[in-house]
């Protein structure tokens, strides 16, 4: 047995080894596993654990937001209902939007992406494991922060879009809006660092041979969303900060007298529109990777779909004004943004054609996952065409701020986020847990969700065309709105039952699901090469990739060489993974990954203290928080000396 040869300085010729019955032994496990107990739980930087936490937490917010919606539907089932006061209704619809759009829609995708990315890319972890843990803790802190106000009856009440002047101090003197503004800034920190993590992981942590035209579409989706978030989130964080300044210190950014109320809308939607693409493109990527598995063939048009993903997001930065068509802007601006909003339909539609073609030229297998992935195509198109209609300015002047837009946004969000996520749960649950979900219950689950959703939301198109405005806590009879509202309420409860069936399937199958091996679906991508659930180190050896579908190479004959998964580079001196070049995936260095640490959690506590102090004007708390932040950052970034040991060079940062 030879130790891997090392230079005394800092080079290594890593050896290539083959996985056998005796290798990997316990060594890799010892290096990578999280220590048990509370300390391990708070200090873990394992992307799979973080991913699962994101998924569970996001689902909790989905359920909270769903309950808020059901209570609102009870109020709106009949005209003139008195279940809720106007103030209660206003807080409910605000928290419903906040919970769904901010606390569920993006974090659920972060959760799946966090878990899957290193497995899809052939890596051992994300580029910044500690930052990963930090982004989760801050997300939890932001969610708790925003709900804390709601729980004591002082929740945000000006809508998830929070327009001024209604959100300004003279009209909203309580702490509600400050909870919103500061909470959203806090959440923005989580989103931003998470986005940076995905971008750098994509650029440097792919397995050798995984050139950028070989990565799964989910990678393109999340990458695109992450680049967009880096550039877009500052707009809303800034808007919230400027509003907080107006409210606390009397600055003049948004007031009608010396500021500009419309500035809020510009800043908000310059973030908000890219955001709505960021919360669907990764989910579309899941469909682009999952649907082909159940059609037993590769996705039709990988390159057009990848390009369309990036193109949609890029165009998405140029359409924000379509949320402001009624604000009295000059005709030239209206024409330009209307044109862009209509044109953006094209790249969004490429995926629809690709998926349909994949079904027609493949052999579809009707699993529950397939049902969700295929049905979302129809829901996508319904949501897409209602968006196309509102993209035309004269039409939008009638449709905007009516239930037509409510129908549109729910078809795109539930159709292009929730339904793919449901499919993703059925698809990847075996990989996460080693058990399958029940297909029998799955069929009931699917149809209840599908029928319930359409029953609950299709009539909203009609309500919109009948002129029912948004965000009203009650309505007059004799408007023609009574019957559709009743149907909507019934459908919503049916849809909620569908979600409940999904939860039941998950809970029951965790204990009693059929055991699943590494690749129960016969799928093509790398995550299906490792055991279910994967070991903490993901891959025993670093794979060498030669095609887009490493596990289908025998059947597809895509490339002259075969990927090597069972035999590859041995990296087991501490936590190590391979760093590769951005375009071609050539190995360029051995990355030394950090150990578990409490620094991300402690840093979050410091930041939370700062934000609570700012909210309540408790300045010593702000000071204490800053001190904790400084200490945590020093501990995090403190370098370690490089030492040579008999086993090789000890991990060290620089």
């Amino acid at each position: 047995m030879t130790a891997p040869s090392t230079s005394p300085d800092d080079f290594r010729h890593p050896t290539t080894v083959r996985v056998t019955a005796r290798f990997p032994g316990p060594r890799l496990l010892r290096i990578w596993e999280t220590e048990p107990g509370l300390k391990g739980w708070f200090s873990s930087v394992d992307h799979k654990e973080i991913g699962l936490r994101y998924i569970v937490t996001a689902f909790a917010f989905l359920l909270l937001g769903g309950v808020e919606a059901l209570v609102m539907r009870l109020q709106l089932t009949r005209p003139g209902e008195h279940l809720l006061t106007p103030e209660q209704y206003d807080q409910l619809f605000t928290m419903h939007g906040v919970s769904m759009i901010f606390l569920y829609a993006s974090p659920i995708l972060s959760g799946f992406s966090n878990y899957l990315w290193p497995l899809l890319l052939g890596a051992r972890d994300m580029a910044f494991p500690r930052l990963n843990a930090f982004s989760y803790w801050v997300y939890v802190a932001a969610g708790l922060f925003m709900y804390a106000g709601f729980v004591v009856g002082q929740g945000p009440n000006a809508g998830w879009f929070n327009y001024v002047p209604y959100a300004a101090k003279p009209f909203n003197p309580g702490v509600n809006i400050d909870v919103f503004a500061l909470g959203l800034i806090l959440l923005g920190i989580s989103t931003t660092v998470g986005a940076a993590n995905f971008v750098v992981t994509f650029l440097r942590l792919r397995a050798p041979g995984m050139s950028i035209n070989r990565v799964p579409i989910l990678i393109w989706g999340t990458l695109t969303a992450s680049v967009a978030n880096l550039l877009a989130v500052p707009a809303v964080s800034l808007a919230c900060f400027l509003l907080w300044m107006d409210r606390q210190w009397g600055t003049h950014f948004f007031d009608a007298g010396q500021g500009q109320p419309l500035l809020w809308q510009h800043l908000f939607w310059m973030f908000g529109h890219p955001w709505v693409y960021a919360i669907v493109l990764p989910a579309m990527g899941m469909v682009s990777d999952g649907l082909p598995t159940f059609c037993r063939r590769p996705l039709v048009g990988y390159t057009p779909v990848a390009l369309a993903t990036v193109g949609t997001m890029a165009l998405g930065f140029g359409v924000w004004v379509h949320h402001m068509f009624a604000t009295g802007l000059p005709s030239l601006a209206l024409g330009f943004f209307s044109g862009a909003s209509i044109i953006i339909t094209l790249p969004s539609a490429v995926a629809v054609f690709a998926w349909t073609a994949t079904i027609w030229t493949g052999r579809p297998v009707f699993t529950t996952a397939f049902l969700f992935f295929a049905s979302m195509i129809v829901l996508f198109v319904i949501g897409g065409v209602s968006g196309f209609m509102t993209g035309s300015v004269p039409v939008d002047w009638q449709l905007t701020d009516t239930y037509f837009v409510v129908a549109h946004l729910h078809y795109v969000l539930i159709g292009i986020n929730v339904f793919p996520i449901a499919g993703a749960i059925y698809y990847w649950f075996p990989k996460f847990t080693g058990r399958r979900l029940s297909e029998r219950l799955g069929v009931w689950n699917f149809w209840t969700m599908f029928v319930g959703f359409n029953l609950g939301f299709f009539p909203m198109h009609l309500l919109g065309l009948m002129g029912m405005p948004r965000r009203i806590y009650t309505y007059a009879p004799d408007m023609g709105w009574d019957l559709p509202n009743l149907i909507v309420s019934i459908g919503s409860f049916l849809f909620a039952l569908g979600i409940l069936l999904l939860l039941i399937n998950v809970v029951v199958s965790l204990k009693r699901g059929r055991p699943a091996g590494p690749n129960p679906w016969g799928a093509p991508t790398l995550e299906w090469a490792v055991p279910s659930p994967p070991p903490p180190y993901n891959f025993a050896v670093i794979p060498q990739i030669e095609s887009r579908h490493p596990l289908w190479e025998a059947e597809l004959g895509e490339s002259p060489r075969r990927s090597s998964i069972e035999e590859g580079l041995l990296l087991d001196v501490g936590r190590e993974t391979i760093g590769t070049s951005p375009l071609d995936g050539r190995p360029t260095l051995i990355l030394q990954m950090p150990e578990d640490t409490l620094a991300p959690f402690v840093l979050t506590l410091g930041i939370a203290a700062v934000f609570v102090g700012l909210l309540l004007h408790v300045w010593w708390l702000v000071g204490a928080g800053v001190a904790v932040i400084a200490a945590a950052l020093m501990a995090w970034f403190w370098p370690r000396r490089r030492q040579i040991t008999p086993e090789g060079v000890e991990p060290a940062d620089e």
Partner: protein
Amino acid sequence: MAAPASLPASGPAWPMGYLATFGPRADPATALTWGLMDISIAVVVIVTVLVVAGALLRRVSARGPMPAASPGGKGGLAWIAIGCALTTATLLISLVWTVQVLARIDSPATKPGLTIEITGHQWWWEARYQPDQPGGAFTTANELHIPTGQPVRLKVTSADVIHSFWVPALTGKTDTIPGRVNLGWMQADRAGVYRGQCTEYCGEEHAKMALYVVAEPPARFDAWRQAELAPAAATALPGQTIFEARCGACHSVRGTSAGGVVGPDLTHLMSRRTIASGILPNDVASLSGWIANPQALKPGAAMPATNLNGAELTQVVAYLETLK
């Protein structure tokens, strides 16, 4: 919130709908709405049929192990090419049509002879009429009258937060933004009563901020305008004294000492079909109930409980009934 009793019994089934509109500001957009909707329905039907048919026709049984993967049938990329070509053509047609309609409804064919300055308040509508001749200005609230067959210029702003002015049968939405005047116009080619409502969330009672536009032949409109211009006739009713003392701080009645501008101008209150911004019929019972306890009907409204005793209330309502 019952519909006002004085509306014609054969009112539209959808008072707030806009698939049928009645003026040149709205009609071209309505045609475009129908056109884009027809395109949309066609697209949804086609895609649904393709997806469902494809899945059913090409399916293999889910029992047993998964069938082997294969490179799949040929011609997949053609789907994308054809789909993109059809989509592009449809989008371009829609875009051209959109721009045409935008240009057409941007301004009226003839110069408007009447300007109405609309100010949104939490939660009612102020309307100041500015005809071309000097001395012809007056203020009213919540019910606008316009002559048929003529364009009316709208200057729209807000006294507090952002609202949105919308009368679906006649015109698209225009936001009312404090510190800014947005321009619009509308025209009714058919006489009738058209309902509108605020369509930008503006606080607690955003749901109860409706308005009515009464379009009538020019002769009848002129008569209405002359009546509105005149101040209220003086009365010797005890209710007038109570009104001036207890309500005058917020409400105006021209011809009396009541000159408040916080709430709606009530000089010709009885000429309106509704009260409280379109949510109650303008009859004695509703008026009494509203004055006695506005918070019960519109919680959060700026009008406080007036604490009038029974006799005072009857007298005030009797006085208000004279404001025709």
